[in-house]
């Protein structure tokens, strides 16, 4: 297999010539950048596999896929380190994978296996990998935002060394919990990074019908919170923006609101064909696929070999297919534990 990093080697890129080095701002090495692309591809392939498993009747209820939004998950999670915490929504497969959760355990949870991340108790909408800082995926819109503020409070009580980062959709900015969390985070100066994935639709309804502001960053100004709008399909821009916000939080500078503009390539859930979206809009966003964009950029910058993005995609796709068959064959979750079983003294 071809290694990801181009023979010319850009590993040392770190800001010696910031003017003409696109990688300088991030301080990320070529190896790191390549592994970010791998993570994005893994999320894409897992989501594609979940779609296939759903079609086979193996995914119960519904499932909310994030194809097209991989740049936000990977860019933001790369700005975190061990000890930081992350919370996300029911469209959270990507975020949990981006934080390092084992892909087979993610698939296992989504199809209700004992070996799943949450022992088959949570399913597609509730992926968590607490040891890696993925503290939960929450299925009530906006409900996790006060909890993300609470995690940040817990970090603050230990001196702000760690931070809380939380993902949510544009639709969440219209629910009460969002405003209570933003207000508390600001007035308590909590180390929390609010990452709003603005994919233009709250479930089936376009934002203009539900939301009186075009730039969601305006929401933050009401709470005197620093805010940034970023191209969510540019993983490095997301990383840069989040890294800045994380730094500020670690220094006691409090919360940041980040609006990452992105697009859901599929419908809201597996029962939604998303016919309400103009074809031209879909085409425009598909042309800005974050994986294609990032792969092409890395090739253009000679950070990776020209053939590597395509070969990596094939490698990961085949890995996921094989992994999926093993997970499908694994034992079903078969016991219902009591709440707090194993935790209670």
């Amino acid at each position, binding site marked *: 297999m071809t290694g990801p990093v181009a023979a010319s080697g850009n590993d040392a890129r770190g800001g010696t010539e910031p003017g003409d080095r696109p990688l300088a701002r991030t301080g990320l090495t070529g190896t790191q950048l390549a592994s970010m692309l791998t993570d994005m591809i893994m999320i894409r392939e897992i989501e594609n596999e979940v779609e296939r498993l759903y079609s086979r009747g193996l995914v119960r209820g519904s499932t909310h896929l994030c194809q097209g939004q991989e740049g936000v998950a990977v860019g933001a999670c790369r700005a975190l380190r061990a000890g930081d915490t992350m919370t996300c929504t029911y469209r959270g497969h990507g975020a949990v994978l981006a934080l390092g959760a084992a892909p087979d355990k993610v698939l296992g949870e989504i199809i209700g296996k004992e070996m799943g991340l949450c022992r088959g108790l949570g399913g597609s909408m509730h992926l968590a*990998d607490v040891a890696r800082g993925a503290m*939960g995926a929450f299925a009530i819109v906006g*409900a996790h935002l*006060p909890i993300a503020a609470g995690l940040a409070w817990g970090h603050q*009580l230990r001196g702000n060394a760690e931070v809380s980062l939380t993902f949510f959709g544009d639709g969440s900015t219209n629910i*009460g919990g969002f405003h*209570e969390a933003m207000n508390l985070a600001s007035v308590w100066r909590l180390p929390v990074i609010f990452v709003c994935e603005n994919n233009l639709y709250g479930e089936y309804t376009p934002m203009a019908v539900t939301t009186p502001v075009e730039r969601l960053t305006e929401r933050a100004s009401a709470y005197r919170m620093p805010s940034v709008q970023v191209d969510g399909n540019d993983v490095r821009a997301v990383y840069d923006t989040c890294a800045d916000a994380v730094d500020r939080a670690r220094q006691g500078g409090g919360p940041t609101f980040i609006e990452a503009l992105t697009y859901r390539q599929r419908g809201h859930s597996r029962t939604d064909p998303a016919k309400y979206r103009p074809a031209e809009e879909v085409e425009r966003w598909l042309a800005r696929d974050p994986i294609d964009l990032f792969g092409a950029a890395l090739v253009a910058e000679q950070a990776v070999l020209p053939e590597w993005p395509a070969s990596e995609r094939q490698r990961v796709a085949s890995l996921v297919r094989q992994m999926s068959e093993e997970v499908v064959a694994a034992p079903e979750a078969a016991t219902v534990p009591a709440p*707090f079983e194993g935790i209670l003294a």
Partner: protein
Amino acid sequence: MTTAQRSWTYRDAIRSALADELRADPTVLLLGEDVAAAGGVFKVTNGLLDEFGPVRIRDTPISEQAIIGGAIGAAMLGWKPVAEIMFADFAAVAYDQITNQLAKHSFLTGMQVSTPVTVRLANGAGLGFAGQHSQAVENWFIGEPGLKICVPSFAADAYTLLRQAIQDPAPVLFFEHKSLYPRRDDEGVPTPAGPHGAAVVRAGGDITIVATQAALRSVLEARPELERLGVDAEIIDLRWLRPLDLDTVLKSVVKTSRLLCVQEGEAMGGWGEHVVAEVARSGFSHLDAPPTLLASPPVPLPYAGGLEKLWMPSPEKVVTAVQELVRW
């Protein structure tokens, strides 16, 4: 019980439990509306800010979702937050946080985390606060696996139970009946059947009366009249609604053959109906009279003094209900 404890009010006992937990365990935190500088609207947390400082005793915005969600988040990182809901009625604002998040998050993660949050709620009627500041709302939560529900009736018991609740790795809703804050334990406190058990407050042989908090006080007030009428009532304080100690109730019913539950709040969907149903099912052959619930009428709590009194399960109503049951 020490002399100091005997002179405690219910309010003093709760404050002492908080202070002792804050002293003993540096991970214990308090948060809520007006709990710090103002010492709480019922003065339960008075003085705690001075001793423990603004980092651990924290005033919040009027944001019940943020109070409960904030407590959940901190709890997941190993802190033991005690969140105050100023009037228990306001728990409705945070109903999602309490039922969908606090009760279920640990389970949904496959028990990867715990959420050791204690929620203190000033509960119940009798003080003229009308229909949105007087409800006994424990029955809003009794059908939620994942929550423990504590309903202390006596000062000394409130002290013990609150310390127990704070150290419990599972979340506990700790209901403090507002009308009990100034009350003292004049006649001593019964011994419960274990840490989550009910307690037989007065032993008797003719009828089992099960109650909690202010309703339990009504039952105790009715007891002299019952004695005068020749009825020897066994009175049980449930102390917890989740877990619910049915064994103590059933043992008593085996002895007395009669059951009266006395509940503040309407009958439908409450613990009283559940206890009646369980006793009917598991104690059927021992019963000489239909197991019965005395509850409040199915109307919102009225404001005017006379109307609120009519709404409450009063000692007079307890006497009437008991008389009907012993006639069987």
